[in-house]
């Protein structure tokens, strides 16, 4: 195995995963707010932030869809070595990771069932950059409104219409993470 596969995981897994999780949890609890997340050095094209999210949430009990350029040998091998997660297609994925344009139509991902709305995909969307401008967000976790540079508006509005079913989104860019749960109204 080449060296890059063996390295780039958490050097202190329990502690770094605990910190990374808190960043992801705060992000999911406060839609559109950007938090730093560190500890992972994954192979390109995965960002450090996306790598940390995958290390924190994925293991042999979860499946991951690698969209577009993410579906490469370096990422597959790194993910398998550090998490044990299986790589699957979008229709059965617990997590999906990729650039917005590569992730394709949201309708191909499971949105949960009326009795188990939690049985849905969480999409990890790599953004070239993110900031607090763009679409207006409102709903649980947001005191009044928030602004966030969503890659699209209509798709997220349609997803919110499915509530309590729907997809949840984690955005990653460099060392930053933000999120948009299905409960957020987008305009």
């Amino acid at each position, binding site marked *: 195995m080449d060296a890059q596969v063996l390295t780039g995981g958490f*050097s*202190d*897994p*329990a*502690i770094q*995963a*605990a*910190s990374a*999780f*808190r960043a*992801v*949890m*705060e992000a*999911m*609890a*406060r839609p559109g707010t950007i938090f730093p997340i560190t500890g992972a050095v994954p192979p390109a094209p995965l960002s450090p932030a996306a790598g940390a999210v995958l290390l*924190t*949430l*994925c*293991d*042999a*009990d*979860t499946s991951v869809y690698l969209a577009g350029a993410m579906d490469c040998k370096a990422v597959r091998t790194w993910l398998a070595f550090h998490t044990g997660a299986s790589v699957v297609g979008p229709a059965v994925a*617990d997590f999906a990771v990729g650039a917005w344009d590569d992730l394709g139509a949201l309708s191909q991902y499971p949105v949960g069932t*009326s*009795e*188990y*709305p*939690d049985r849905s995909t*969480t999409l990890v969307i790599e953004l070239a950059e993110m900031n607090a401008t763009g679409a207006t967000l409102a*709903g*649980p*976790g*947001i*005191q009044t409104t928030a602004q966030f540079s969503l890659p699209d508006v209509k798709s997220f509005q349609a997803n919110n219409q499915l*509530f*309590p079913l729907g997809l*949840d989104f984690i955005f990653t860019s460099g060392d930053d993470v933000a999120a948009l*749960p*299905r*409960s957020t109204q987008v305009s």
Partner: protein
Amino acid sequence: MTQTSDYNFAYLDEQTKRMIRRAILKGLAIPGYQVPFASREMPMPYGWGTGGVQVSAAVLRPEDTFKVIDQGADDTTNAVSIRTFFERTAGIETTTTTGDATVIQTRHRIPEEPLSEGQILVYQVPIPEPLRFLEPRESETRKMHSLEEYGLMHVKLYEDISRHGHIATSYAYPVKVEGRYVMDPSPIPKFDNPKLGDMAAIQLFGAGREQRIYALPPYTNAVSLDFEDHPFEASKADHPCGLCGAEDSYLDEVIIDDDGTRMYVCSDTDYCEGRRAAGFVGAMAQAGDGEILTTQRELEITA
């Protein structure tokens, strides 16, 4: 690498923590919905809040400051043992001061002092299903939630009114979250219900025996069920605290001597101590006897 020494940081193994963390994220994404999770055996009995302990274990970081309250008090056997458990397994700092804590695990109360962003409140939940007393079958309550079939719940509350003239439910009073899921806030007094909604802190609920996790993100709408002709009332004993004189806090009634003399004191011990330290004195507190009274109160609550 320090994997060996840190592998069981906060007691639980990493795979279990990941499973709980995934459930917490789903709970935050679907406020009020009960996410199933595979509860683990913890080195304490179920009645001691194993659900809350597992949630705390999944969210704690080494730099956190942890507080545990049991019916508002930091010093009960239950609270002390959970605090010690995490001091030992996670090496974290603990506190009894509400404002200094980043993670607060609670049984049956919400602190009087408003919580802020950056704080996390973890509830120990015995029975997460608000519809359980109407329908014992899990398959049926799950269907009722999916169809928003909450009529029976209103009927039960209304029966209270016809029987007692008011809604007699005073603990675990159900709330509707964001107009969608009816949620059991755990057996907090209904006095605490107005604090559930629009709270700045993250609220996480863990039920160990029943294997459910649910959540309220900050600034989430949580409305106590009521009726136009019988609006919800966050009632409490109509007394000031005997020790600190507070008129806005939830009170416990305690017996303070062998003659059965009663007094009302803040159930939130940190709140009460903070007020007394700031110079507030209740009608039944004389300088110097506060400590004795506190001890008596513990005996009463433990009994």
